[in-house]
Structures are given as C-alpha cells and as structure tokens.
C-alpha cells in the first residue's frame, strides 16, 4: 500500500519531490516509481534518516550535509536528483547494506577506520569531525576536563561516551536510545552536556526548536574522517574523490555546512577541514 502511494506521488509531483518520494521505500523494487520518469542511471544512497543537519527524513524529502554532499557527488557521476533513491542506513547496518549491495554508496557519518576497511571500501574523506560537547548556551563547560561531577548524555553503547567515562570517572553517564532524548533532557536542565561528533551536535543545535538554546564547545578531542562507504572492489572511488575535491573547490561544500548548521553557533575545525580525499586503494 505504501509503495503504491509513493509511486502515485512520484508521478504526480514535480521532479524535485519525485526523487524523495521513492527514497522512502525500504525495498529496492520501489526505485521504479520515480526512476521511470527521468531515465538514465539510478543510484541507491544510504543516509541517516534521524540525524537533523546530516541526514534527516523531513517527511517526503531529505535534508542535511550528508544529503547535500551525496546529491553533489551523484550529479558529478551523471545521476540527476530524481534518480537518487535514499535508503535508511542505521549505524549497525552499514557494512551489511554494502556487502549485500543493497545500496551503491553510503553517506552516513561513516568514519573511515582500519577495521571497516577490511570489509568495505571508502572514498573521501569529505569531512573531518571530532568528538565534542554540546552544552546549554550559558554553560561554562569548555572541555571534557570540566565534566567532573556533571551529567553527560550519549547514545546507548556509543564508544565516544565510554571514552570520557574511562578518563574522567567522576562523570555521570546517561545512555539514551537517541540524541533527541539527550537534547530534550538537556533542555529541561537535568543533563549538563551531550557528547558525540561535533557536526552531529551542530545539526541538533541548529534545529528550529532548539535555536539559541545550545552551543557546541568547539574543543574537539578526537578525529573522525567521514568517508563515502562503497562495496568492496567498487570502481567509483576515483570519480567520487574528484567530485568531492570539486565541491570543496567551488564553494558548495562550505555552503552546505553553513546552511545545515545555521543557528548552532558552530564553526568546523579549520585545521583539518576541508580535507583532501585519500588516494583510492
């Protein structure tokens, strides 16, 4: 039923809406709905659906920095927007989605690590994030060393929170199913800081509902190279890297970051950004 509805929407809607309409489908068949109209090659791209500012399902369309980079890269690969099918790629499923070729590439806050390189290929990085803290605007916390005796919130099982807990045993760690819960609790004043990658925090803070309430501390204490996940042995790496380089060169990269973190009082780490893509394996 859902598929039919999306397909109907795809036929009726203007081109810009069409691409997102078929993106919602969670089965590969649904790409036929929008793909038929534009013709040409289609791309299935894995993104986050629940991370505002990076990859977020707005209800029929997708927004965020990851999405903007994905669209730019797709355009450089000769795939028009209406031929992109966005697929949800939760952290736990990313390797499997690529290994089973359920998606062609993944832009989902996907850090390049040596362990992951054993099972998937990476292009990029297209952004260097770092673990940071999100705190209320009037907070005097400037780094993890100020967290002693404070309440820190992160997502259940996340390694970033555990790292802080190990180094600063005085920190009270609360684990929640998602960052939204953490931010709600911080809005109520029960939580002093939320920790994860800085750009994710910026995306949360940039939400309309949170505008002006929180700030990203800007004192990163780790380095996460966000890459484009590709199935092992993919031949697209080189083209993607040149697309990323071009995006950085013509200012679209900068613009994508600014527009997606507007209102968050956030500046990316300029020493590491914009990154130069690593040579392909």
């Amino acid at each position: 039923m859902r598929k039919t509805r999306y397909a109907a929407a795809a036929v009726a809607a203007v081109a810009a809406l069409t691409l997102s309409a078929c993106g919602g489908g969670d089965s590969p068949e649904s790409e036929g709905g929008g793909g038929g109209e534009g013709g040409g090659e289609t791309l299935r791209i894995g993104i986050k659906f629940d991370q505002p500012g990076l990859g977020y399902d707005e209800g029929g369309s997708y927004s965020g920095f990851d999405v903007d980079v994905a669209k730019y890269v797709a355009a450089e690969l000769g795939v028009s927007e209406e031929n992109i099918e966005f697929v949800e790629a939760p952290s736990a499923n990313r390797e499997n989605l690529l290994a089973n070729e359920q998606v062609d590439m993944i832009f989902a806050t996907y850090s390049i690590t040596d362990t992951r390189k054993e099972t998937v290929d990476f292009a990029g990085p297209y952004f260097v994030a770092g673990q940071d803290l999100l705190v209320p605007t009037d907070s005097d916390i400037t780094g993890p060393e100020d967290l002693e005796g404070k309440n820190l919130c992160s997502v259940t099982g996340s390694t970033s929170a555990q790292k802080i807990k190990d180094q600063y045993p005085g920190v009270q760690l609360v684990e929640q199913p998602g960052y939204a819960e953490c931010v709600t609790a911080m809005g109520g004043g029960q939580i002093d800081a939320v920790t994860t990658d800085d750009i994710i925090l910026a995306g949360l803070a940039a939400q309309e509902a949170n505008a002006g309430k929180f700030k990203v501390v800007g004192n990163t204490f780790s380095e996460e190279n966000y890459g484009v996940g590709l199935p092992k042995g993919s031949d697209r790496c080189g083209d993607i890297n040149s697309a990323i380089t071009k995006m950085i060169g013509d200012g679209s990269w900068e613009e994508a970051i600014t527009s997606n973190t507007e209102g968050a009082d956030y500046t990316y780490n300029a020493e590491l950004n914009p990154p130069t893509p690593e040579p392909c394996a």
Partner: protein
Amino acid sequence: MSAQQVLFDAPGPRARRNILIGNIVGVLIVLGILAWIIATLGEKGQLEASMWTPFLEARTWEFFILPGLANTLKAAAIAIVTSVVFGLIFGVGRLSHLTPVRWVAGVVVEFLRAVPVLLMMIFFWLALGSSGAVPPQDAPFIAVVVALTLYNGSVIAELVRSGVQGLPTGQREAGMAIGLTAGQSLRSIEVPQALIAMLPALISQFVVILKDSALGFIITYPELLQYMRRLGVGEGNIIPSLMVAAAIFIIINFGLSTLATRLSVLLSFRTKGRKPAAEEAIAMDPAST
C-alpha cells in the same frame, strides 16, 4: 461474584451521604492530580500551541503518523496470523498422545514463554543482520515478527491446551464412541470448540502483540513509536509526539479489549459446559509489554 452489588447494602440515607462526600473528595483528588500534571506541563512549555499544531498538518499525518501506524499494523497483523498457526501446532502437540511429541512441544513452549520478547528481538535482529540470510534492511521487520510469533504463539498454544482440557470429558468420549481416533477427535471435535471458547482470550493476546510491536523501535524497526520520535526530533515536541503515539495505541487496544469482553459475554452460552476455572485467569494474561 459480582462484588459491586453485594459488598455493601443498598445505601440508606447516611450511607448515601457518606458516598456523596466520598465521591466529591474522589473527584477533587482526581481533578487535582490532572490539574497538577497539566500545570507542570504548561509551566515547562509543553502545552504551547507550537508543540501541538504539527498534528493538525496533513504532512505530519502523511509522512509520519500513517506510515508508522502502517508499519506497526503490518508487523502486528502478520505476527497475529503466524502466532495463531504456531499456537495451534504446538497446542495440539502438547495434547498429543505420543509422549515424545508432547515433551518436545512442552519444552519449546515453556522455554519461549520464559524468555523476554525483547531478548528474542535483539537476537534475531543481530543474528539475521550479520548472517546475510535476509537483506539487512528487512532484518528488523523479520526480527519483530519472528520474536512476536514465538512468544505469543506459545501463549496461544497454552490457550489451546487449557481450552481443550476445559472441555467436558464427554466430548472426547463421544468422539471415541463414534469410532474416531484420539487425534481425529482432537482435531475435529475438541480443538474447534476450544477455539470458540478461547476467542476472547485470543483477542486479548492480539492486544499484547500490538503493544509488543512497539519494542521494535529498540531494534530500529520504523514503527509508529520510531516515526513519532523522528517527528519529535524535527519539531522539538517529543513529549507531545509520544502522547499522540500513546493515544493511538490506547484507542486501538481499547477497541480490541472491548471486543474481547463483548465476545466473552456473547459466547458464554456456548461454553456453559466448560469447567470455569481457566477462563477469567487467561482472559487477562498480563503477558508482556
């Protein structure tokens, strides 16, 4: 017994006055609690119009509430069918006259009833996801359905068993007397009657399935609760979103529960011959979430 009528006499003038006073005090306390909740929510800005207006927009319904509800109902509907099938197979298995079959069915049912549904969901989600046996995108959905089936199927197996055991022995004897084997009598005489008698309890179990499908959000299945959280992230109104999700669940489940109660009254004349013990106890199986 029907407690309401017999625990106290028809009230006289003094008792009526006491009841009236108690009633007023009770109403005041209930209203007081409600007022405190509303006041606190209001004080914290949860009742502001901007928190609730998203629910008046077609977009919210089209892209969040309805797709989420559709996924919840899809998982629940499939799990209802599969768990009834599972329950019938294992319920009849537990009644089999072959000792090994009875034992195997018994061990399986008792084991599955003792394991938390969430534990099974997480297990199937991670096991299916990493084995590559199913597409990773479908792993959460399949895990939800399989876990719900195994747990609720074994509860239904117990319903079948107690339903059949609650039948008058004459039914079985009559079956044997006309030359049916034990298995034939079970299938064509006892189980059909037990099914009618257990219908109310069965519907109560469907409520459990529907509620338990909300556990799917923990394993990333995009059901109603997951969509409502996503909506809450975007609109900054996670508490109103959860309230709407709860209201939707309550309305559907309340409808199902009412149906179960009506049916049990309607069917009571068909089940007159049964031993009464099991009925009330199973009709309100606390089950899980």
